[in-house]
């Protein structure tokens, strides 16, 4: 199983994602410069956090037009796994691969902390190693994580089990229905504000993110390449 981590100018969690894949899964993983248009050689794509293009205009809005996004669309289309973490989630929203949009946090500040979450759907290739409604801790670090979608979209997300992670305790950004992460209808494109790659060893403050990576590997082993 081979991972691609697209790197946009201004990405800054690319190295962290690469380290996490290596340290947790010991699988091949490559940074892919944003000018590459093809991701055919990969089974999974992780759009990393950071501030692609300085997050100018709207976060994720400028990165969406990078050539590598062609590869991302194609991967999503083919049913390969695509994860967008933080800025990666924002890019997926701007690109229309996930429904909704991101607003600035309701308190207007950047917020970095280790946040309690609940796994709302543990039947996905990204979450199968988590328990039912398992409560986990993952770091967050963002200023624009206030997820928005209209009511119709929300009820669709809820009904289809597309809400994957929800904030527990105080909602750190004001997102609708305490949403921290969602998946597309097909279940192969995941966007989440929390950073699983920052929680893969106990010394980091939590190791709860590791299961997200192991879930994918287990699914891949069971069901073969997508």
């Amino acid at each position, binding site marked *: 199983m081979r991972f691609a981590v697209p790197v946009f100018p201004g990405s800054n969690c690319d190295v962290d994602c690469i380290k996490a894949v290596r340290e947790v899964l010991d699988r091949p993983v490559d940074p892919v410069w944003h000018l590459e248009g093809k991701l055919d050689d990969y089974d999974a794509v992780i759009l990393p956090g950071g501030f692609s293009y300085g997050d100018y205009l709207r976060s994720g809005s400028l990165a969406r037009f990078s050539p590598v996004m062609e590869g991302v669309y194609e991967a999503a289309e083919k049913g390969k796994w695509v994860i967008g973490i933080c800025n990666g989630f924002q890019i997926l929203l701007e690109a229309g691969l996930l429904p909704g949009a991101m607003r600035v946090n309701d308190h207007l500040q950047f917020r970095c902390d280790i946040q309690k979450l609940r796994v709302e759907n543990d039947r996905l290739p990204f979450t199968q190693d988590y328990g039912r409604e398992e409560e986990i801790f993952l770091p967050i*670090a963002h200023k624009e994580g206030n997820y928005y979608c209209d009511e119709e979209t929300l009820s669709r997300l809820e009904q289809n089990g597309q809400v994957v992670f929800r904030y527990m305790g105080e909602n750190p950004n004001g997102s609708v229905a305490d949403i921290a992460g969602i998946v597309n209808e097909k279940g192969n494109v995941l966007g989440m504000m929390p950073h699983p790659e920052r929680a893969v060893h106990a010394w980091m403050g939590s190791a709860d993110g590791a299961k997200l990576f192991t879930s994918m590997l287990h699914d891949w082993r069971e069901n073969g390449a997508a």
Partner: protein
Amino acid sequence: MQPNQTQSNTVAHREPTPEMIEKQQLYREVGLTEGEFRQVKGHLGRPPNWTELGIYSVMWSEHCSYKNSKPLLRRFPAEGPRVLQGPGEGAGAIDIGDGQAVVFKIESHNHPSAVEPFQGAATGVGGIIRDVFSMGARPVALLNSLRFGPLEQNRVRYLFGQAVAGIAHYGNVVGIPTVGGEVEFDSSYEGNPLVNAMCVGVLDHKDLQKGVASGIGNPVLYVGASTGRDGIHGATFASEELTENSEEKRPAVQAGDPFMEKLLLEACLELVNQGILIGVQDMGAAGLTCSSAEMAAKGNTGMDLDLDAVPQRETGMTPYEILLSESQERMLLVVEDGREREVKEVLDKWGLSSAVVGRVTDNRRYRICHRGEIVADIPVHTLVDDAPVLHRTGAEPEYYRRFAGVRPEKQMDPIHPQEALKRVLASPNVASKRWVYQQYDHMVRTSTAVRPGSDAAVIVLDGLDKALALSTDGNGRYVYLDPEQGGAIAVAESARNVVCSGAQPVGITDCLNFGSPEKPEVFWQLEGAVNGMSAACRELETPVVGGNVSLYNETQGEPIYPTPVVGMVGLVESRKHITTQSWKQEGDTLLLLGETFAELGGSEWQQTMNGEISGRPPQLDLSKEKRLQKTVLEAIRQGWVTSAHDLSAGGLAVALSESAIGGEQGANVELESDLDASVFLFSESQSRVLLSVSPDVAEEVGKLAASHGVPCTNIGRVGGEKLTIRLNGSTAVELTVKELSAIWEGAIPCAMNPSSTN
């Protein structure tokens, strides 16, 4: 060759002629004295034109030349077996073994932050990051040290809130974790806040870069943002007192673009990796002028610059403006002749514009060309090496004599210690700084092992078992009351913080924030502090490998508290030694290392209860301090210590509370002393550390301490929901950890949101 004395036609009518400069004493306007102007004339053999005058004025400003502080800075120990690069480059470097070095420096952005706090603080962070990556190092951590007036004031809340947001914004976007720092509030900083930022990087020895221009004929490359009129005379601005007119100097404030910085950072490190660079320096204070002149002076060469090649984002800029602009996110590179293409490929990849703006020459002259004319022609070394040096003398201030007889412990109101603890914990100086650091991404790069909130932050190094412990510390109140003691304490405390995290202190960087050195009392503070810091650095074997001086921190003639800030770096030998201040295990034994005296001068207790400070600060015995630190580190390395917390502001009472809050459990503490309970609990005696250890090793730790001559007292055990402190059998404090936590966590958010009703 004589530079054209009238300048190009377009600017001639706006810029004063050399005659006007001399006759009307216009050199005063750019901060040069009559004597300095005479020296300039001597160096040139003629009166300078306006451009040349501008160049001298910034190069000889305090900010670039340290003319007031140079003789004092020489007293700092700058050498040691680990020192790879001492003061003089963008940042200092210290060997950490395995062919690697840690590179770090602290810098102030006080005056810009007083005028435009968001951009001022943000660009301060930007500047220090460039200093570190221009050494060839990958920045791995940021810290900061902040001083503001009391939060009751609207304007202060605005300055503080915006400065924190600016620091957060810049570091977060570039993707360097901000892992630590400190904040204090005192009315002496009301009109002149302090914003000091520190950056720490790591490199392989072979990648260490220098800011030199060598190799005759080699091209000089300008990289990064284009040049605008922002920040002209920032260096001189930083070297002046803030006045009511400072707001009019707004053009002196720059705006930053952290996205551009991230691109510059990656591109420069890629160039370092390819080994193409001969010299690299960031365009910081005094912009193009300072970086190019310093590079030529260090290379013992000359430089020809063509200003028409400099990318500009405004039209009609004069040579004076182009040379002195402090537009952000720009670097100057000297590369091998013929390899421009390779360099450009890398820069293009990162979308950075670049231009060849000059050549290295062999004539040791600094020559500037604009629209086909030479507009400046100066012997290079006169800008750097011949900058004037002022030997000032200090005078002991009246207050210092007056305070000699004050005994704060005798003047205290009979406030119950529990009441006092509540008030001290709610003091914004002591209270949790979560409101600040939760705005900083402190986990990006996934190497932060100890996040903000403990004595020092700890960053692990990729692929190695080692780690770095980092802390910034300063104590303006102690330094005000006794500069020498205070200076020494700043070093000792930051070293103690690092030791409590499991590290061996290896070196410091410092930022000297003081008032006007022209005042003998202020100079006395500066000299005393430097002496105290130097002595502590010698004893603790932490050389000073770099730093920054910020003088003229005054408003309406009133200087700030003298505030040297120490940025300490420690080396953790093995990750298993990493220790934090929170209690871990119910039943653990609490050991207090060190001795407690009646020392409340300048303490948080005195400030909170009396609203002012007086007397003498705690006294530091360097040999005791060293033995204490040895004991703590050895005990940690033996694996005996479950938590370690140094005693500082608020003394034992606050240290116990913080360890309890962090560990979410209480303790039963039994103390015996001749001192009054409040004196014992809030004294800020130095060289003390609180340890928690498993009961079965308590005796071993005691023996170890005894072998170093360090007093070690068993003061109780961890456990329960309450923190109970008894002195000589009677209860001084009995509060639940929840209560303590609510007070301590709530203070700053509450102060920042005064109108909120929920």
